[in-house]
């Protein structure tokens, strides 16, 4: 699985309250959630993400609440993947479970500017900054997680496994 797109960069400790404020948690439609993605930091984010982007975060991306609406909002706003120095664990699992690829890459923040073209190869465990000609080798996700992502999320994965 490979993902390519321009980067939108954020800092450390981006919490789920800024990714999706609590007042929108009564919304169920992912496209409605997407209209408020990252509203706490940049109300223009959904417009910028629409064309398909890769989010680059710092340390502890997605910290705070367990709200799955946060990665859902990002996914449906146009984020194809999130690369961060580290993730908050619930966010990390939630993203995988809804089929939004996430990968840890130490040192990524310092070497990416907004708009840089990035490529992530999940099987190979590589992150490339095509605009800057830089490449990172990262820890690969375990095979069962890659399977969940390839299936499009945990529910699809479970359906497939339960049919066997």
């Amino acid at each position, binding site marked *: 699985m490979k993902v390519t797109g321009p980067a939108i960069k954020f800092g450390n400790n981006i919490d789920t309250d800024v990714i999706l404020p609590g007042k929108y948690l009564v919304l169920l439609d992912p496209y409605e959630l997407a209209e408020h993605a990252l509203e*706490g930091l940049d109300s223009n984010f959904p417009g910028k993400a629409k064309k398909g982007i890769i989010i680059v975060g710092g340390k*502890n991306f997605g910290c705070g609440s*367990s709200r*799955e609406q946060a990665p859902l909002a990002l996914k449906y706003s146009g984020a194809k993947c999130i690369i961060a120095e580290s993730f908050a664990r619930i966010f990390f699992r*939630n993203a995988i479970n*809804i089929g939004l690829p996430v990968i840890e890459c130490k040192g990524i923040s310092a070497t990416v500017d907004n708009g840089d073209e990035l490529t992530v190869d999940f099987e190979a465990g590589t992150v490339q900054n095509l605009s800057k000609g830089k490449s990172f080798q990262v820890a690969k996700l*375990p095979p069962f997680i890659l399977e969940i992502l390839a299936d499009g999320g*945990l*529910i699809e994965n*479970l359906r497939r496994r339960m049919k066997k």
Partner: protein
Amino acid sequence: MNITEKILANASGKKMVQPGEIVDANVDMIMVHDLTGPLAIEAFKKIGTEKVWNNQKVVMILDHQVPAESIKAAELHKTMRQFAKDQKLRIYDVGRGGICHQVMPEQGHVIPGTVIVGADSHTCTYGAFGAFATGIGSTEAAAVFATGKIWLKVPEAIKINVSGKFSKYITAKDLVLNIIGILGVDGAIYKSVEFTGPTIREMSTAGRMTVCNMAVEMGAKNGIVEPDGTTSKFLQGRVKTMPAFEALKSDKDATYERTVVFNVAELEPQVACPSSVDNVKPVSEVNNVPIEQAFIGSCTNGRIEDLRLAAQVIKDKKVKDGVRALVIPASQEIYMQALTEGLIEIFTAAGAVVCGSACGPCLGGHIGLLAAEEICVSTSNRNFIGRMGSKKASVYLASPATVAASAVAGKITDPRTLEAKQ
């Protein structure tokens, strides 16, 4: 092995587990609430399994948007009630429970040594009773509904050893804010945090719950305290079965990534300033910040011990003009107890408003939201941008004593100085 490793080994049918190992654990209990349950139900229906794996092990609690503040919330609640009825699940509806993390142990759903997952990040609260408890998302909750299992990476552990006696008006909340201030919001990311030492041993279950509750604020997978006599005293009459605690003690040679030592003897009241939970300062450095709202409640600090302390500070005084003070007992049981003890009267007479048991303003979804430029001092657990309403509002986190003193003074105040002035 340490206690977390022992519980995970037992839950996955292994003699031994090591940090980094991925285990397939049997889940003993799962909880969802009204903001995570509906998505979980939707996901569960897509799996195509008709019934949940064990209807005795699924609990639903309405606590975030209750009583329903909008038609949308009312619809979500209706969905949950219907699912609970169809699946014959235990549901704690409006007026029958309160905040999920209080209701779970109160109603006997938390048993030491078990694996509990909840679709809420503060599920780690139950570690206070020696359970392995961690937060998950809605889709994962749906998968647990169907299978009763979850994959977990055995976490590395940090041991936090606490000694010293708390002085007057210094609480478990001040301790945990102090810990987070030093370790940082990612200081325990992916890890288990085991709280131990003489101060934890002497601490009430309420204090232990406050400490474990905020483990997630430093990124921890779980917070945990070895169960003891205090634990069994609280759980007696609430749980159906009480396991032997011998198997739930960390071995003398258990491994920890590191041990951090704290002493509370000289601890000042602590305040987490906007907008990160590790932006912690002693109250003397934040004194005089004017406030518009004071909130006493939440899964962190809405217990009877917290209300007693706040009432002790606020008794025979008035909430300062221009300040709204909100008090929310964490559960119906606590509300009743507060009524019996006359605490509700003390708060009401002081000009505070006491609301029905729910999450309240903590997550900015329901009541007590803040306007731009407003400041709230709160006993809750997060002070992120926009957490409690406007993204231009500010939230300071503190103990029930500090929040009560601040409500009276109209500005962030050391509860010890308020007393001295009277």
